[in-house]
């Protein structure tokens, strides 16, 4: 059966965002916007601090031994990827808050779905990074034992 011929009354059976749900979602959007902006700014400050402190740290600890250079390089790449993923998550979260807010203001269903898609991408990135963090934590715990 063709979906386009479905009677308009079937819309009544669909799930709708009610008034309370809309209000709570709007407050969630405000806080998510704040968190994303703080996250982007925080990562920027962290990058700045790393760039400023690296020469001093290298001066303090001297030059690296040839054997350790490879490990340090891999660690630095892993850290850069980790923080890059967090910045990407913060940017997509900001997009979620902006797009969903606009969708609720203009009653745009397509925009609302795009906002939810951004939230999905945010949680996907956060899921990968939290799995990575947990693996690193378990590794250090085993290493300490």
């Amino acid at each position, binding site marked *: 059966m063709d979906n386009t011929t479905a009677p308009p009354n079937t819309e009544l059976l669909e*799930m*709708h965002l009610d*008034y309370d*749900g809309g209000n709570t979602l709007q*407050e*969630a959007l405000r806080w998510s916007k*704040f968190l994303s902006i703080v996250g982007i700014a925080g990562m920027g400050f962290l990058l700045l601090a790393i760039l400023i402190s690296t020469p001093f740290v290298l001066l303090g600890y001297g030059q690296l031994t040839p054997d350790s250079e490879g490990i340090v390089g891999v660690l630095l790449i892993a850290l850069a990827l980790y923080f890059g993923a967090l910045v990407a998550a913060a940017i997509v979260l900001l997009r979620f808050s902006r797009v969903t807010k606009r969708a609720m203001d203009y009653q745009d269903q397509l925009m609302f779905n795009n906002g939810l898609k951004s939230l999905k991408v945010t949680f*996907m990135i956060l899921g990968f990074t939290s799995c990575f963090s*947990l693996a690193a*934590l378990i590794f250090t715990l085993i290493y300490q034992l």
Partner: protein
Amino acid sequence: MESQEQGESVTDLDNFFHISLDGASRDHLKQIALWARICSITGLLGYVIQLYEWLFGHSRLGASFGGGILGSIFGISSIGGGAVVNYFLYRFAVSVSRGVQNTDADRVNSGFNSLRLYFRTAGILVIIIICLVFLGVIGYMLTDRRVDY
């Protein structure tokens, strides 16, 4: 004036009812709930491991606050705060996935309430951390000046 307010509130109400949770948004919500559940479970496991390390291991959690009572308060509050945030995320994931499965809009809406609490608690924790960092920087600068004299 009153009628204008009433008109505005009706428009707001109307706005929310025009947005439905259709097939595409339900698919997105399912995926969101799945990843939110992964995030919350890994986060909670991480905090359990940190608590174990802090109690029985050689964790440096709170050591930057000089250890002792201040370090303990910092350790408990950071683990407790993180666990509460992840609990709200888990509640959001459970409510949304059940709501989408049973086509229950009330459950999905209560899931959005948990999402609000998750973002709000995380935001308040971030504000507290920013305040602590500022206090730490000011304290460091003051002690540094005293040493110079």
